[in-house]
């Protein structure tokens, strides 16, 4: 076990525990205010919990009950934030050499180590520049080099790609993927791609609690919480298994194969927006589930339009349609529609 963590902070309603295996990269997902920043703060040592302890590579990182609460600079826990936060008065090289210098390494050796780290993020040619002379992507790559130059035991990443232009993010993401190999890391993100490429496991936080945890691919394929479902771009209905489908707490029934699931057991039904068809008049003679709903919102998404609807029973279901279909069907918020979902396109799994 590389990292085990548990902490409680009454004031912020924070009560979280999780474990991360050796060399595993953890992603922390959750809506704003869920406790992600608190989690990073407790690990970094800037937010002190009421109770809690964490162990890193078999050594205690902190243990509040045992009065062990090391200051941030004694933890060897690195931090990469959304903004690069390069020290503006130092050159790129001096920025990256800052950590080794603080650890007592002599200037020549520290600068040599800094050059190696800069090379690893493809930024060696920037060594002599000032942070103000860098583009956003360059600055974040230098910040990555600076964070790993101290060889931290744990690397915290706080939405490291969120502030970057979409054209710059891919290179930084690739660099980050390389430096994270074999490193225990905790990544806070709102981005599906970041979660898929930069983590092996995820925990989903909501209101200061872990509401979902598991291997990244598994959580995103079979989400159990609305937040994870939204991130994965899936419709999620939680309910109980019946002989030919799932019935939600609101009484909505969705036809699906429930083979192997005991009747009445709690299950989730997930389906992509692309398998939801939208009709103005009720379709007939179809083996599909037909739901009556009302359009709530229309939102362009890539080359299609996401139609968010609320069913008469009160569930939110999103459909993906073409822009042309929006015009043909004359869709607008408030419009009554029928939604059809093919039973074979719905995945049902126990929760």
């Amino acid at each position, binding site marked *: 076990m590389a990292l085990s963590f548990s902490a409680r902070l009454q004031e912020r309603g924070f009560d979280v525990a999780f474990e991360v295996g050796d060399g595993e990269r953890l992603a922390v997902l959750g809506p704003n205010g869920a406790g992600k920043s608190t989690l990073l703060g407790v690990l970094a040592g800037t937010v002190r919990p009421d109770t809690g302890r964490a162990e890193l590579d078999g050594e205690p990182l902190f243990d509040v009950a045992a009065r062990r609460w090391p200051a941030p*600079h004694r933890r060897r826990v690195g931090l990469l934030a959304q903004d690069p936060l390069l020290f503006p008065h130092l050159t790129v090289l001096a920025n990256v050499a800052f950590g080794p210098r603080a650890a007592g390494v002599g200037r020549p050796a520290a600068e040599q180590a800094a050059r190696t780290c800069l090379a690893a993020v493809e930024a060696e040619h920037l060594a002599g520049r000032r942070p103000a002379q860098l583009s956003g992507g360059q600055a974040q790559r230098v910040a990555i080099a600076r964070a790993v130059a101290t060889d*931290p035991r744990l690397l915290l990443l706080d939405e490291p790609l969120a502030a970057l232009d979409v054209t710059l993010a891919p290179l930084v993401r690739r660099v980050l993927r390389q430096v994270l190999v074999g490193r225990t890391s905790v990544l806070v993100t709102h981005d599906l791609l970041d979660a898929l490429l930069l983590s092996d496991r995820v925990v989903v936080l909501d209101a200061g609690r872990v509401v979902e945890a598991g291997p990244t691919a598994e959580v995103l394929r079979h989400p159990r919480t609305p937040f994870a479902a939204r991130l994965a771009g899936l419709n999620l209905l939680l309910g109980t298994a019946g002989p030919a489908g799932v019935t939600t707490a609101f009484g909505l029934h969705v036809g699906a194969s429930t083979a192997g699931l005991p009747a009445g057991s709690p299950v989730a039904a997930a389906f992509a927006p692309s398998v939801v068809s939208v009709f103005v008049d009720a379709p007939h003679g179809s083996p599909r589930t037909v739901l009556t709903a009302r359009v709530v919102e229309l939102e362009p998404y890539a080359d299609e339009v996401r139609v968010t609807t609320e069913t008469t029973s009160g569930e939110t279901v999103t459909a993906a349609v073409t822009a042309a279909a929006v015009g043909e069907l004359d869709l607008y918020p408030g419009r009554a529609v029928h939604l059809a979902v093919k039973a074979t396109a719905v995945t049902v799994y126990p929760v």
Partner: protein
Amino acid sequence: MARRWSGVPLWVYVPATLGALFVVLPLVAMATRVDWARFGALVTSPASLDALGLSLRTSLASTLLCLVLGVPMALVLARTAFPGQRVVRALVLLPLVLPPVVGGIALLYTFGRRGLLGHALEVLGLQVAFSTTAVVLAQTFVSLPFLVVSLEGTLRAVGQRYETVAATLGAGPTLVLRRVTLPLVLPGLLSGSVLAFARALGEFGATLTFAGSLQGVTRTLPLEIYLQRETDASTAVALSLLLVAVAVGVVGLAAGRTGRVL
């Protein structure tokens, strides 16, 4: 430079110009009264040179004292939280609004022979009141808040994020202060020091009350000007102009260094 729409009503220029004239005109009026033929002789008389030298030395000393005491004060006020902090801040900034004479009296009752600490100081063989030390203390008393206010504002504006990153890179608090915080707030530190120096240079009331007016020991330039005004107006005017020149020089130097005036 492209001319941007300012959005300022035209009539605003009238009071704005009046205000500028109100500040500049007296300086011009004073300059017209300078006896330029004797200017050199007037400002290089022994009494004048004594006063100028003393003013520069004491103002520099009090600015250093302001830095030694004010930087830690600003750090504590900007970065920490403790009960009664608002009250402490208000009290520390009190000299900003206090008449300097009152400050002088307060200092006298603290460091004077019969003051709160006077006896203890006397046992140590120190007599503070009516000495050059008293001048420095009086100047520090009135100029300290300028440095603290200016620096505290800069510290808050810069924020703590750089310091957090430095700490996660393994730097202890003293190293972070030296290598990250102070370089980041350098402009604020510089403008605060200039403000403090300028305030010390102009200090009159607290100095006169607490330190007296002894040539070469406690009679700073403002005191000398006030004294000369009674007997020799042309010397007073010449020295006033000198004081203005020194002040403008200091502010100009700081502006050239930081790219902005205070």
